[in-house]
């Protein structure tokens, strides 16, 4: 019993590490929406946005702390989040498109 719990825990840790390595936090812009619309990362993490639409998008933080260049189809934008907090952002071309990056330890 003990052994199986331990192995389960180890497996979970391994899975978590594998997940972190394989899945860098990424937000896809598709059909005029951010997916996921909310994303949670640890301080220091780099978030990547990829535009999958044929229409350009440009993202900007509500507090002005970051702003991308215009992203045409398949263009990417990367932003490192050093500080903790909740960062709302918007597409400056289509301000009905919003998203949030939660940065927590």
């Amino acid at each position, binding site marked *: 019993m003990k052994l199986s719990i331990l192995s389960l825990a180890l497996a979970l840790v391994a899975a978590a590490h594998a997940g972190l390595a394989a899945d860098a936090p990424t937000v896809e812009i598709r*059909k005029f929406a951010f997916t996921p619309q909310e994303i949670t990362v640890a301080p220091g993490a780099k978030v990547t946005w990829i535009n999958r639409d044929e229409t*350009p998008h440009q993202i900007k933080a509500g507090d002005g702390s970051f702003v991308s260049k215009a992203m045409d189809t398949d263009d990417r934008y990367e932003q490192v989040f050093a500080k903790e907090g909740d960062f709302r952002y918007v597409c400056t071309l289509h301000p*009905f498109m919003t998203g949030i990056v939660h940065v927590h330890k």
Partner: protein
Amino acid sequence: MSKDREFDPQRRQALSCLSAWSGAAVVWSLVGGVPRAFAADAVGRAAAKSTGTLTFVQISDTHIGFNKPANPDIVGGVRRAIADINALPHAPALVVHTGDVSHLSKPEEFGQARELLAEIRVDRVHTVPGEHDALDDGLAGYLKQFDHDGKNRAWYSFDQGGVHFIGLSNVLDFKMGSLTSLGDEQLAWLKQDLRHVSHSTPIVVLAHIPMWTVYAQWGWGTADADQALALLKRYGSVTILNGHIHQVLQKVEGNVALHTAMSLAYPLPKPGQPGVGEPGPVKVPAGELGKLIGTRELTVVRGKHELAMVDMPLDHA
């Protein structure tokens, strides 16, 4: 009191015999303060009959720089439209472009757009910015090529042929999760600008995004348009020309008539069109594009003034 009327294809067919129009543009004439729009050959005839007529052309949403399958030859299409404008029997007094001149606000796109527009044989081409013209550096790149009054801002007015023209920018100012807006500074300027305009002067307003809420889910509206309309409604003849949604829609409210125009680049879906979740470029079979980027509408509003308007497809007989 107000009504939204979508373009009616049956009506288009019924009207198609009325004109031998040759251009993907709207030709407007103002006769005695009454805005009218005519088909190409009708322009010449109408102009010949009446003096004090102002004719002008509206084009919109050229998206210079766009190179996706929805229209791989934007420049070719714009040139065809320009050839049609240049072939009008009665040369228009001016051409107005209601925004999204460029696709990505790149300097070379603005430069190419300016060179193309210079091929129109007309004294003045006036533009207002679209949101595609406000990327990266805001409107700085746009204003390098299209600063119409030398004041380094995107709104301006001028008088021509007895008409007061007002160009507005509704693409920069917005609240997160909302519609774009004109903003307080511009509204204050508009109020000041209108002080010098008599109530009998016909007014034509140019703005990229519709000045009424066509479809909020896609951002097709201007958050503070009501404040601008409140300033304008006391005037006897107000015509608001918009772009952005790449299709012809209209709304009439009292003396104020609002019209969106077709694009010269690619079609967009109808607002809330079933099966379409977002306002992205619509790809159509080869041979169909030239018909879809130019629908046509003619409307007569009876009352204190009339307004008639003709939109034409790039492909025409």
